[in-house]
């Protein structure tokens, strides 16, 4: 991807991707150093500059690298998918190459362990399910689960996946609210999710 550029600006993001130990200040410096070494080994010496901003998805922060951008042929972004696209919108005449592969909205469950737990479906029902999301935590997105494949609290898809419905039932049992699950949950309105097309929020009270 990068072979065609003589100068590359490596831009990290010191928020979520830093928490994920994937694209923060530290990883940005490491990646830039590794790139320089790799190029040197091949006898090439492109200009590689590193920079890290607090949030690649917020315009105020994106502006802070504005003076570095014109000096480079391309930007290698360590932001998430949103960060990469935000840079591309601002620096519309620069190629922006993603350094990361954005996976999911998750939680740092333990050091070095990240767990997907929200699909941003736009129709939050966590209150009914003991704050365990059946959309994100059940491999089949069952609203009236569990399915017949759950065994010893493990999902049929892989024994390393905890059964979301087992978690829901245990949590509601603890809370004494298991009765919530006796109600039939009707089909989900997915139009609030990505199924309804790319989503956008505009809040006039925040705009001035």
């Amino acid at each position, binding site marked *: 991807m990068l072979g065609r550029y003589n100068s590359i600006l490596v831009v990290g993001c010191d928020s979520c991707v830093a928490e994920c130990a994937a694209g923060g200040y530290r990883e940005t410096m490491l990646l830039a150093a590794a790139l320089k070494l790799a190029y040197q080994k091949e006898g090439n010496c492109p200009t590689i500059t590193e920079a890290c901003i607090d949030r690649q998805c917020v315009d105020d922060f994106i502006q802070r690298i504005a003076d570095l951008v014109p000096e480079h042929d391309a930007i290698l972004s360590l932001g998430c998918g949103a960060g990469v696209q935000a840079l591309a919108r601002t620096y519309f005449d620069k190629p922006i190459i993603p350094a990361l592969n954005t996976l999911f909205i998750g939680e740092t469950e333990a050091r070095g362990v990240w767990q997907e737990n929200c699909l941003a479906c736009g129709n939050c029902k966590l209150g009914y399910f003991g704050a365990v999301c059946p959309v994100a935590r059940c491999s089949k997105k069952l609203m009236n689960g569990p399915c017949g494949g759950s065994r010893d609290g493990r999902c*049929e898809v892989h024994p390393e996946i905890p059964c979301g419905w087992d978690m829901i039932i245990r949590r509601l049992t603890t809370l004494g609210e298991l009765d919530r699950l006796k109600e*039939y949950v009707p089909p989900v309105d997915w139009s609030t999710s990505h199924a309804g097309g790319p989503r956008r929020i505009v809040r006039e009270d925040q705009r001035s």
Partner: protein
Amino acid sequence: MKSGSRLKRVLEGGHFAVTAECGPPKGSDVAKLEAKARHLQGRVDAVNVTDNQTAIVRMSSVAACSLLKNMGLEPVLQMVTRDRNRIALQSDLFGAYALGILNVLCLTGDHQSFGNQKGAMGVFDLDSIQLLSVVRDMRDHGHILGGEAIETPPRMFIGAAENPFADPLTWRAVRLAKKISAGADFIQTQCIFNIDRFEAFMQQARDMGLTDKVYILAGITPFKSAAMARYMAEKVAGMDIPEEMTKRIAGVPKEKQASEGIKIAVETIERVKAIKGVAGIHVMAIEWEHKVPEIIEAAGLTDRPQV
């Protein structure tokens, strides 16, 4: 209830029902499907046609049901929500009923990671319970999801599956109740090997008054070999196969394992038949349809009611 299904008449007539399963071919070979079905002709009250079972691509279950129907068999259309969204599911229900298919079994389906299209997007727009409610609303209220009225709505006899062995055990009967109130007229259970646990499940169902509201058909699968028993015990999702059963079949010489498997199946039928609330059996002889007559005969269930 307004479905013209034969299976419905058998069950409502108080007869002990016998259904079997027929997996469509991988491809469009009609002769192969018909050969399988001929073993079941006149032997069972209805035949379930699986819907891309274990996420392996096969002939569509609507098409295969229609072919069986043309042979004079009574098909039960299995429908999973894994592969089709609510538009396609409802459309296929219209089509199935137009082809004379009168029974449907509403399932979520095995996850696509089990099959031969592992990169597929799993749809799961609805779950099995929501699908039940969709089919019931078509039949009893004449409308599709969202309330829009339809002309000539499908009037299906509606089934659901239940796995008495999946965890958490205490939740299984509650989920069964949910399926009944969503529209299930009959239930076909997962293959039964752990009869004690099945009895406990039936006890729960009786205590909750569920056996008065739904026909429960006990799932029976004969082992072809000790290797199959082991494979099912270890690899197949949702199976509960007690060790003594795998040991029993492994304990006989290889050439006798098939007949031992059938013997176990027949014994299981006899035991479940004695459980109060069991309205029939559902024989899932996987790629072994030709053995179904032998099993049914040994279990003394050859004479199918004329209804």
